[in-house]
């Protein structure tokens, strides 16, 4: 009985919460907890299911599922490859691989949480990497400082993101289509700029800085950690993040609540573009080249990581921690396959299965929440 009362009260609270963009909305859309009904009534145990299911339904629980999956993968890795898998060098290899796609996925989390999608991330990485390694840019970097290459990549990424955002927010074009167009255009522009040749980086200071390591951990991994931390803070502890959830959850209600939805949408896409710029810098450092062939199919990897991390594709709920786990799961899977001499084709099938299983589990757990 009491649970039903609590539930209806929570529902009432919800409907009263929506119009006010104040702290009350915070409770309603807090991503680290499930729908308030499920989490709040967790105390009543007996009616809605046992403690384990309730734990799994909560935010920490969802991540727990991902952690378990990751641990399972690690166990398989250790079982099949022993200390080739468990060594520090191997862990660093996994992290270095995860770093580039991880940064892209963090940007993608914001866009998807805000109710959109961005298919052009791979092409933006390519364009940013090409633009930042043209002879002109490299000459400037040699004359002044390598940071100019970094700023070029970031600017190009942000500019592409801006175009995406404007098309989606003001042009009212469906995100799928707008970013699809950017996917083709950015890749084409990258090919034109580079004349389809690979551009080699001759600015040694750039390569040396990003190729180095701090306290034994590569700079690239630090960059991933920093971007992830900044993303988490932005999404969960700032008004910007709150607004993102509101816009993704119900754009019309957010607009009525006084949120400038269009401007916010543009900001989200610019943020994604910026993340692509950062990823481009990391890829440039890792390969010492800029090329129009970089970033192929990154959008699929990013979306897969974001989705299995627990972010809803329809928007309104998102988690940076989940995305990070998603990226780690896929890269660890890749590593285990490589260590065991297994074909990459089998791995792709496994990847598809993992995505399906993860989403089905999330749906079932969410459906069980009353």
């Amino acid at each position, binding site marked *: 009985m009491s649970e039903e009362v609590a539930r209806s009260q929570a529902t009432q609270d919800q409907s009263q919460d929506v119009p006010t963009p104040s702290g009350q909305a915070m409770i309603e859309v807090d991503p680290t907890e499930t729908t308030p009904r499920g989490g709040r009534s967790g105390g009543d145990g007996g009616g809605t299911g046992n403690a384990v299911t309730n734990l799994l339904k909560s935010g920490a629980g969802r991540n727990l599922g991902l952690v378990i999956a990751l641990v399972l993968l690690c166990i398989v890795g250790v079982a099949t490859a022993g200390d080739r898998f468990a060594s520090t060098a191997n862990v660093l290899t996994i992290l270095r691989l995860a770093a580039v796609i991880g940064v892209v996925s963090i940007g993608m989390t914001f866009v998807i949480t805000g109710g959109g999608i961005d298919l052009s991330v791979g092409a933006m990485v390519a364009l940013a990497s090409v633009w930042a390694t043209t002879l002109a840019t490299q000459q400037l970097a040699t004359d002044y400082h390598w940071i100019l290459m970094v700023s070029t990549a970031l600017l190009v990424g942000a500019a592409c993101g801006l175009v995406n955002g404007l098309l989606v927010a003001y042009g009212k074009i469906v995100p799928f289509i707008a970013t699809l167009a950017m996917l083709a255009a950015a890749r084409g522009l990258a090919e034109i700029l580079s004349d*389809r040749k690979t551009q080699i980086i001759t600015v040694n200071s750039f390569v040396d800085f990003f190729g180095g390591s701090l306290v034994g951990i590569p700079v690239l991994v630090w960059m991933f950690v920093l971007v992830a931390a900044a993303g988490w803070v932005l999404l969960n502890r700032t008004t910007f993040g709150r607004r993102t959830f509101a816009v993704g959850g119900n754009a019309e209600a957010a607009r009525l609540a006084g949120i400038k939805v269009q401007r916010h949408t543009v900001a989200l896409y610019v943020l994604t573009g910026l993340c692509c710029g950062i990823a481009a810098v990391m890829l440039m450092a890792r390969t010492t080249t800029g090329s129009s*062939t970089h970033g192929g199919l990154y959008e699929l990897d990013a979306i897969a990581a974001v989705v299995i991390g627990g972010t809803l594709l329809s928007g309104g709920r998102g988690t940076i921690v989940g995305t990070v786990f998603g990226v780690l799961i896929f890269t660890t899977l890749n590593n285990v396959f490589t260590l065991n001499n297994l074909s990459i084709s089998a791995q792709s099938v496994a990847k598809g299965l993992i995505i399906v299983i993860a989403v089905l589990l999330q749906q079932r757990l969410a459906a069980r929440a009353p």
Partner: protein
Amino acid sequence: MSVRSARVLLTAGLAGLSSMALIACTSNTPEAEKTNDNATQAVAAGGNDEPGKKVKIGFSAPAADHGWMGAITKATQAEAKKYSDVELIVAEGTNDVNLQISQVETFINDKVDAIVLLPFDGAALTPVATKAMEAGITVVNVDREFDSTFAARTTVLGDNKGMGVSAGTYICKEMKGKKDAVIAEIAGIDSLPLTQARSAGFKEALADCGLKVSNRVAAEFTVESGEKAAANLLQAAPKIDAIWNHDDDQGVGVMAAIKNSGRKEFFVVGGAGSANVMRDIKAGNSLLKATVIYPSTQGADGVKLARLLVQKKALGDLVEVEVPRTVQLYAPVVTKDNVDQYLPTAFES
């Protein structure tokens, strides 16, 4: 039995039958391939082939999305199997440089003795190859060159410029001095230096007899891209005298596009030397008149050289005791006259 359960049974029965039929259709090894494996093992073994110290070799190549690349990987694995002292670890199948770099990093962590690497992009994989060399691992570069001499101990490649020159020379000969012949070129992945080298050689050889490339398109070594590029080319040029297609795998698509267009006023020269094309040349009933070989044995040669390097042996038949820095394989032109000589070692698309 009720209508409903009958329907359920019928659906289940149909589903079961179709899945059985599908599963029965997955077998994919042709008879010829099985006998070929036996044939390749009967190769004469020289003194260098005597088993020596155990060698652990890591092999990485891009995705086998076309027959030539698939042949490279298969030949490499077959070669490694012939030696009892070679353990080959294969990590192939990606066109993503980020992923290929991490594959090589895994080899480094594994402390392999040698790495045979066909990079998706030579420049992009140069840093990690240099890292491997610095870690004491012998790196053998195959086909797509790194851009630093410190990144590999030995490079095995085909003669890309020579390929273009051979193709251009053959076309020059066939044109018999016709002055404004329309020559078209269908290249492979344009961002690769090897494609640029082939085109440069082709242009040079044509310039020698006063001809030039009138139309040029680029595909991606895959059948689908070849078909697309060729279809566009045929639209762009209403009359062509000769086409040089860089690669016979994309050539399958190219020939399909040509057939669909119904045009016959030109002849086609291929590249890489697939068995399909050689059979067509031999039969003499298609527009394909010749092809230039780009050996798909480079990976296998890489493994052989890596083994010699790690066991500190010399390359037989050479006086010099060290294995050469670069081994550039020859690019012969295959026509109807000499096709029988090359058909046995050609790769299947």
